[in-house]
């Protein structure tokens, strides 16, 4: 069919010739992997604005409880629950996943592998359309009668399973529906990524010539594909509980609420690695390019990535240490959880070793890439506390947990994305971004970020629990010192949000008026820099051939300090 498909495509579909395409077929219904990547990216960024606004509203409520929040008004406890729930859901499922996996995967895989598109372009388009639908369903869920779902992003039943308990009849159902649709979308995308990476590599590209970011995206996709089944099954059952009245998770009808926790976290923990790995891959690309060094221990990184993937299936119940599972199971999961720190530590060491002996230029993408390592380390080491089951008894569901996973997710979803956007911007849009504005944005984001979350570690150690809209109800937590920390964190958060303005200005200004970018402005080795900037539909004038690995910087035999993969000698 594929052959007839090509024939039909040439005959019937004029959008092969991109100069003839109108706006709709070029930007909306395109099957071009780059356009679909942009669609994912812009949708993700739009959702990030919503998620960020939600964070602003509830942080203001925590700092100044009971006072009217500018641009929102009074925050009731129901509003608060809805805001935190959807902040978590949006940031993980509608920002981190689409931007890191879907957008970068779509944009980078064909370019870096030296082919002209994904192997199933129409499946790819369908994937984005389902994703868009899911985002719309989620947004609709905020405005239906009863308001948006407010049972925390983990949606533990019985609270989530019955409107009698959560009082958001439609909101909770639409939330589940949106999540299920979103996973269906990524499933289609994932099939595409893996197939493309296997079958459409440039001539001469061996397994060990694939850039590490492509490897990591593919390992992430495998993790996703192999772990998403339980969550979809759980979502279907939860939806039936809500709408049909079954009682899979309701003890009153013989169901078991703990079952959902297993199904949810069986996906939920690999999910962390699903978004972590692409971000780490992006950072690997950036630090080797700007330190002009070959990536230290390519194979070591690759094998430890596989080890991380394998281990990530065996750690999920560490989210349930205090939830009434058998404590003997807790022991096993504490051990596996601490073990998973080992491969991640090894990858980090390799990254640091890459810097050794380099010639480091602190451009904006490099600053972001280095800050990923620096910040993620703190997120990583605080994970040790939570993986240790006995310690988790105290820290479970406190602000310590919250600060810990923000120290992992912020580097992943925000720093990782900024690294990628600033690094590939010339290739994506054919123009350079402004370095000064980029650096203002960088420092204005990184410093407030630490000021937000370090106080939250302290609050967590003081026993402050998550998801509480007003700490004045708890005399031990309503002290002035702790309130000062909350106000400090909130102020830093507002400052950080304001410093996103330079980025938005920079992005759109550079998009139209930036300095024109050459083909390979960073003098990097991977194949995407062989294409024109911006890469046209079809990517390459003639498909590149690959002669060597992707990181041959400063090779003694090369004429310059870089040696692109496609150059014969």
């Amino acid at each position: 069919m594929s052959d007839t498909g090509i024939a039909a495509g040439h005959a019937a579909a004029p959008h092969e010739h991109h100069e003839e395409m109108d706006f709709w077929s070029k930007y909306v219904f395109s099957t071009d992997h780059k356009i679909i990547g942009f669609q994912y990216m812009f949708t993700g960024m739009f959702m990030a604005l919503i998620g960020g606004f939600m964070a602003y509203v509830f942080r203001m409520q925590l700092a100044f409880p009971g006072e009217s929040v500018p641009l929102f008004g009074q925050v009731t406890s129901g509003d608060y629950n809805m805001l935190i729930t959807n902040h978590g859901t949006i940031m993980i499922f509608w920002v981190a996943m689409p931007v890191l996996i879907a957008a970068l995967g779509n944009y980078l895989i064909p370019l870096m592998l030296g082919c002209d598109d994904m192997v199933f372009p129409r499946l790819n388009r369908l994937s984005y359309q389902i994703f868009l639908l899911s985002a719309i369903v989620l947004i609709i869920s905020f405005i239906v009668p009863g308001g948006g779902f407010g049972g925390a992003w983990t949606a533990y039943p019985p609270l989530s399973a019955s409107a009698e308990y959560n009082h958001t009849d439609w909101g909770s159902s639409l939330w589940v529906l949106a999540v299920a649709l979103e996973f269906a979308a990524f499933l289609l995308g994932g099939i595409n990524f893996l197939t493309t990476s296997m079958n459409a590599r440039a001539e001469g590209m061996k397994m060990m010539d694939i850039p590490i970011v492509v490897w990591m995206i593919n390992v992430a996709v495998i993790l996703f594909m192999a772990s998403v089944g339980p969550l979809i099954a759980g979502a279907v059952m939860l939806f039936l509980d809500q709408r049909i009245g079954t009682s899979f998770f309701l003890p009153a009808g013989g169901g078991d609420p703990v079952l959902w926790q297993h199904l949810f976290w069986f996906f939920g923990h690999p999910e962390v690695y699903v978004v972590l790995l692409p971000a780490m891959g992006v950072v690997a690309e950036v630090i080797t390019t700007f330190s002009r060094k070959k990536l230290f221990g390519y194979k070591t990184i690759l094998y430890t990535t596989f080890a991380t993937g394998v281990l990530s299936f065996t750690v999920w119940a560490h989210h349930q240490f205090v939830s009434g599972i058998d404590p003997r199971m807790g022991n096993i999961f504490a051990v596996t959880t601490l073990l998973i720190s080992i491969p991640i530590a090894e990858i980090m060491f390799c990254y640091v070793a890459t810097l050794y002996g380099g010639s480091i230029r602190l451009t904006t993408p490099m600053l972001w890439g280095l800050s990923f390592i620096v910040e993620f380390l703190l997120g990583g080491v605080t994970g040790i506390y939570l993986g240790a089951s006995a310690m988790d008894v105290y820290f479970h569901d406190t602000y310590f947990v919250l600060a810990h996973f923000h120290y992992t997710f912020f580097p992943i979803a925000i720093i990782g994305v900024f690294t990628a956007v600033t690094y590939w911007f010339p290739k994506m849009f054919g123009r350079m971004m402004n370095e000064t504005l980029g650096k203002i944005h960088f420092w204005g984001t990184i410093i407030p970020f630490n000021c937000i979350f370090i106080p939250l570690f302290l609050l967590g150690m003081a026993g402050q629990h998550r998801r509480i809209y007003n700490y004045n109800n708890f005399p031990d937590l309503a002290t002035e010192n702790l309130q000062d920390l909350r106000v400090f964190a909130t102020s830093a958060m507002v400052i950080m949000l304001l410093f996103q303005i330079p980025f938005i200005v920079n992005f759109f200004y550079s998009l139209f008026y930036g300095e024109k970018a050459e083909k390979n402005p960073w003098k990097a080795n991977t194949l995407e820099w062989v294409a024109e900037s911006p890469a046209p539909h079809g990517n390459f004038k003639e498909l590149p051939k690959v002669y060597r690995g992707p990181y041959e910087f400063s090779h003694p035999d090369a004429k310059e300090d870089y040696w692109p993969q496609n150059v014969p000698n």
Partner: protein
Amino acid sequence: MLIGTNVDPTRHQNRQKPPIANGVVGIAIFVVTEVMFFASLISAYLVLRSGAEEWPPWGQPRLPVAATAFNTVVLLLSGLVLFKAYQQFLKPDRVSVSRKMLGLSILLGLFFVLFQGYEWIQLLQFGLTMTSSNYGGLFYLIIGTHAVHVVAALFFLLHTYSMLAPSRIPQLASTEFVVSQIFWYFVVGVWPILYFLIYLV
């Protein structure tokens, strides 16, 4: 079709053919996800069942074990016929035989679904519904999910069947044939496990 492409980078360039066709890779990955999906439904079933006082609960109708055994045989037979059909397809000039056998396989699959629908109507009349108990809920959830997959797989097979028509070039359908086969074998292969766990034990 979904897996058809208008720009297929592995085909229209002067490039080495991949050892495994795109569609086959895609469906293999998809089947991994599906296996996990069914594994978790079965897990849920085992957990909820183990927590129940009696299984099946008092006052709920029993499932038709014997009739479904017959139906199981029909489904397995359909898988076998499909296997034979593909063997015929690989031989030169046996495409029309292959197509007839594929048609038979589709009919057997269709019989399976319709027979199951008939069973469901009976069970509903006896008072087994999704909300009558978790027994019913899990039964309809798992068997219904399987039925949805059977129907989807039948559409795959029908597509292959139409591509094997003498008026078209059947040789081009080789990937489609393999893809629809893999999916059908998955659907057929899951069924005995479900039958054993839900009807028999």
